[in-house]
């Protein structure tokens, strides 16, 4: 156990998995320049800078994954994935199925996103729902150092394509992280970040701390909120969600991504299909509005879901609104 930042947790996971499996390699625009110690340790062959060519970075990873390597690619910011959709969605997500199971695609796609840096809508755009909607992929988006490390290690060991999203705002958060094997966190398991019995708050990435903050404020109002950290967005941990809502009867889903056809929509639909009778109140979504991320700090703050928004939504539910 040691206290490290999310950014360090990512590098630790890469170090351990590259050490463990010689087939793992890392490439992307600037990764070799920015991770000199990985280059020193594993060689320039396994840690590579690339040309500025997202489509071929992703395509190369897919082709390599199908033929014996286990690539991890750094695509920088999520909106840049717009150049790499064919390789990820049409190839990595479909070619196993389309070939009747002839190929496997053990590959990890790293992408950062998340408002708070004033860099605007072409850097800050949460696109995780696109990949949840597409077949054959897995999607993770952790909220703390231990999960970043544990889920990245699991993603690298997974035999399927995994989209690994990092929220910029969490990079310098630190937390206690286990070393080596014990650090593994399974893909597909949500975590109960706080247990409670009056309402279930479901979130991921930076909205988990937001919900924990809201839960404190709610506690002061005598409301006992359960906070679920999804951690994996695909496959969803339906059991944990259903158990919680069957207990609390109330659900608020919170994320930075836009509302329409987002994870919040999926969870609201899932719950109203599977736990309808348990619901004491409408399911509520607290998300950013359906607009591009503004750069201006004032607008960016207003864009992001904040604890008071979550508290207000919960009070609405308890008011039976």
């Amino acid at each position, binding site marked *: 156990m040691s206290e490290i930042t999310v950014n360090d947790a990512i590098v630790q996971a890469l170090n351990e998995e590259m050490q463990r499996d010689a087939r793992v390699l890392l490439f992307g625009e600037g990764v070799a320049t920015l991770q000199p110690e990985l280059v020193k340790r594993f060689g320039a062959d396994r840690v590579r800078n690339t040309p500025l060519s997202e489509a071929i970075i992703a*395509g190369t990873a897919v082709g390599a994954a199908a033929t014996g390597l286990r690539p991890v690619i750094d695509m920088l910011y999520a909106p840049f994935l717009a150049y790499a959709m*064919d390789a990820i969605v*049409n*190839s990595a997500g479909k070619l*196993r199925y389309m*070939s*009747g199971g*002839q190929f496997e695609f053990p590959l990890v796609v790293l992408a950062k996103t998340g408002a708070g840096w004033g860099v605007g809508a072409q850097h800050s755009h949460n696109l995780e729902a696109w990949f949840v909607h597409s077949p054959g992929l897995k999607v993770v988006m952790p909220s703390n150092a231990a999960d970043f490390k544990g889920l990245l290690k699991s993603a690298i060991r997974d035999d399927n394509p995994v989209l690994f999203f990092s929220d910029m705002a969490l990079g310098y958060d630190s937390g206690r992280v286990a070393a080596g094997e014990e650090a593994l966190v399974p893909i597909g398991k949500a975590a109960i970040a706080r247990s409670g019995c009056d309402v279930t708050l479901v979130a991921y990435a930076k909205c988990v701390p937001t919900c924990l903050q809201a839960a404190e404020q709610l506690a002061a109002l005598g409301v006992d909120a359960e906070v679920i950290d999804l951690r994996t967005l695909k496959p969803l941990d339906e059991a944990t969600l259903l158990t919680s809502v069957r207990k609390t009867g109330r659900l608020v889903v919170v994320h930075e991504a836009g509302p329409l056809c987002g994870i919040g929509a999926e969870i609201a639909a899932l719950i109203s299909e599977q736990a309808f009778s348990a619901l004491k109140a409408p399911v509520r979504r607290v998300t950013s509005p359906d607009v591009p991320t503004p750069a201006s700090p004032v607008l960016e703050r207003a864009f992001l879901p904040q604890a008071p928004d979550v508290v207000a939504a919960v009070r609405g539910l308890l008011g039976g609104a």
Partner: protein
Amino acid sequence: MDFIRTERDPLSLYQSMLLIRAYEKRLAALFAAGNFPLTCSAQGQEAAAVGVVRALNADDRILTNHRSSAHLLARGADPGRLIAEVMGKTTGYCGGKSGTLHISAKALGVVLTSTIVGGELSLATGVALSKQMLKQAGIVACFFGDGAACEGIFHESLNLASVWELPVLYVCENNQWQAFVHRRETMIADRIAPWAGNYAIDYASVDGNDVNAVLTAAEAAVERIRRTGKPYLLETCTYRQKGHFSLDDQGYVDADELTRWKALDPLRRMEAYLLESAGLSADDLAALRAQAEAGLDDAVAFAQQSPYPDSSALTADVYA
């Protein structure tokens, strides 16, 4: 019985071209008869496919596209299993889940076929990277069309292959058409091979309807890649004798162009060569044709007798 074919003698080359031609004609007939899936015919491009595929070894890898029948058959694919795949049968190379447009056959080293134009260009570099990093023998041949050369991924793929020195044989099958658009409307140049110069990649452009010329050019390219580890671009200049796909009557194709190219039919030319220079007789050729037709009869019967998948297959093979 997946046996990778590597014979390069004139007779074997001709037999392979004959099989491809018979296969395409048979599929066209089945489609015309109704209740058979549409396909993209490689008729007219047999020499371009056979000449390159036969220049490869068993440990080399092939990536292809929507117009893959010739590459697969030249490599030794079982026509019965190909037709079964086209029909969506369990005995098809992909269990019927691919259908005609993206048939891959791992056992033959034909990997990751994509019908997304340029898809094969995006994947070939990775397959070659595996060869390089896993220190495996063999190179990667990537077949794509003149249309695919217009996609941005062409630029990104060749540039990366050059910078990372990946053993890729890029094979541009310049058949003058890109679905319903003539190549002329899509680029200024008539030849794509010289485009490789921007990436300091060696290249050649060859008469794609002369199987002997294609084999010679491909052997030279492959030898160079094996020696240097670097990529190479070979352009085969050929012609799409049929429409883009089964339903396309080619009404938009210039009649003279079609006639000009039909006069350059690769099978006719190889037959002339065999008669003149290889001591075969007209009867020999007739016998070979009959043999190919008989093979197709069996293939079609096999495919037709094969079962459709059980609906439980619908949700299988999504994740490893």
